[in-house]
């Protein structure tokens, strides 16, 4: 009985997400003029997808987004783990430091995008994927640090003690004990970092050039003063969602399956 209620609830929420999405998928396979048609599937075409790759630089943007998102996670996650650990375990820089780090994220992007542009311009990192990777790594750090801090706080200090008496350096204890035990948190933080970068628009817009535009910039350009090319937008969105859908197969092992390590006693 409980199980049925559970599945019912989950199916309901899934439906709330899927139904709009299905309409988007459907639109992505329609010719633009029919996109607002009330019929379910009045026609079928792959033109939107083809056009995305031929008449716009969507393919390039897609690749850029992947590189930048993965790159920024690869750069930011280790740092975030370390700083989050220091905050959680050593109370480094105290409450003030924690909040100061978080405060960096509280400023609306509009306030720092121009100063950031100025800086990156000075060091010649505009129009470059490296620049984007760096800026996103830094932008995402505060959130990642905080999330990981939350997870690290839950780890019994006994474990680290054991590791230290076993001869592990603080670093080894962190690397071999703390990290494996907090994999769910790290996976979640990684996904979050990826997604934040994957979706960020303003910095991508201002810091990127034609060769380094990311998916959100590419999609935004489909909103023209001639009208919104909603069918192409739909196609672009469908494609944009794919990496996560694929990745979630692997991530969910850590995040929802749980690691069932059990207790230390």
């Amino acid at each position, binding site marked *: 009985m409980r199980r049925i209620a559970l599945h019912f609830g989950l199916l309901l929420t899934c439906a709330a997400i899927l139904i709009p999405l299905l309409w988007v998928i459907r639109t992505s396979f329609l010719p*633009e*003029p029919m996109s607002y048609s009330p019929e379910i599937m009045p026609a079928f075409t792959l033109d939107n997808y083809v056009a995305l790759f031929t008449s716009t630089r969507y393919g390039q943007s897609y690749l850029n987004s992947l590189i930048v998102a993965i790159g920024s996670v690869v750069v930011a996650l280790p740092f975030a783990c370390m700083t989050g650990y220091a905050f959680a375990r050593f109370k480094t820089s105290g409450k003030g430091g924690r909040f100061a780090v978080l405060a960096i994220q509280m400023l609306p992007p509009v306030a720092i*995008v*121009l100063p950031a542009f*100025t800086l990156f311009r000075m060091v010649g990192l505009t129009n470059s994927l490296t620049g984007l990777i760096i800026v996103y790594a830094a932008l995402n750090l505060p959130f990642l640090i905080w999330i990981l801090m939350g997870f690290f706080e839950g780890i019994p200090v006994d474990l680290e003690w054991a590791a230290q008496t076993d001869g592990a350096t603080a670093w080894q204890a962190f690397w071999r004990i703390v990290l494996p035990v907090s994999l769910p948190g790290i996976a979640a933080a990684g996904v979050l970092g990826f997604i934040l970068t994957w979706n960020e628009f303003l910095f991508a817009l*201002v810091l990127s050039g034609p060769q380094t535009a990311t998916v959100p910039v590419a999609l935004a*350009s*489909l909103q023209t*003063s001639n009208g919104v090319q909603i069918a192409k937008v739909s196609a672009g969105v469908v494609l944009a969602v794919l990496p996560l859908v694929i990745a979630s197969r692997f991530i969910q092992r850590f995040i929802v399956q749980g690691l069932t390590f059990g207790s230390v006693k």
Partner: protein
Amino acid sequence: EPITLRALMEDVPETQIIEKLLPEFTKETGIKVEFEKIGYGDMHDKLVAQLVSPESYYNVLEVDFLWAGEFPAAGWLEDLKPYVEKSGFDLKPIIPSMLDLLGATKESLPILPMYNYSMGLIYRTDLLSDPKIKADFKAKTGKDLAPPATLADYVALSKYFKASGGDLVGAAMQGQRGDPNAMEFSNYLFSSGGAYLDAGRKVVLNSPEGLTALKLYADNIQNGAQQGALSATLDDTMRLMCAGKTFSMVTYWWMLPQLDNAEKCPSVAGKLALSVMPGGHGESGGWGWGIPKNTSDESKAAAWKFIEWVQSKKISVARALEGHAPVRSDVYTDEAVLKKYPFYKTALDVVASGKSFPIFAYSAQYEDVLGTQLSLAGGGQAKPEDALKAAADGLTQLMNK
């Protein structure tokens, strides 16, 4: 090391038309041109970032008339006058209202017009000639059904269609706050004889004509337009028109061929006509070319070469044949062009009779200030009198800034 020209362009057909012709230019001059195409809404932010920096990545600029006050005021643009004089470019064929629009004066030419987007009325001829409707209209109003001659007529007609029921409305209005409703209202203002500024650039918006315009505007939003007009953008109105669910819309004149297209809009193709805004004046708008100050002299020279080329009669005609909205009167009257697009005759009227939104440093912000008041009045949240006063005050304030 040949120079590469880079421009941030709005992703619209105009850009694509030019893009196709670019190889020709490169062949002629050896100068490469790269267009980075993004949406209108994102252009300003991105350009500003470049223009305030020591050296701009973009060395040719596509400038909207709304920025025609701001960019020169900020000192970002090279004066084109010396270039024109040096190269002997002929400015005469360029429609004067376009030059005005983009801030040209006797002393300087910050921006050279590129293409035009003046507004006119597109409406359904089939409805006006439908005998049943004719009879019904006569019965209800005692007048003959005809294209409207004044703004009041237009609004009345619009309301008539909406009141007749069905899912047809009288006007597809773009009422979203900001650019859409500010542009649309400007047509109402100009066609009812009002103005934002007088010849001495004094604010005269809060006039009886202005009030009439605003009342009619609000009336039409509430009683003539489609549901959701207050959040509608150009896109929404186009789709509504295309779907045959509206009698009319006030829009850019060159939208006509896109709507009057059997493939895209089968329900209305062949049933549409363009006219100057009832009352005689519509909002005019346009894009122009500029050259940023913060680039090298060689690239400036190359940029001018490009601008000169792209706005030459020859290339303008070639563009017009692909659907370009010209800024040169000699193109509108070009035979080949007229043959392909008979309505360019009316278009020239639309362009020539167009009046301009106030152009000054804060034009874009003023759109928003005005748009807010229009939105409030349109939604019945503010009385037209108050809204108009607030809009006029806002304009005064911004002009004095």
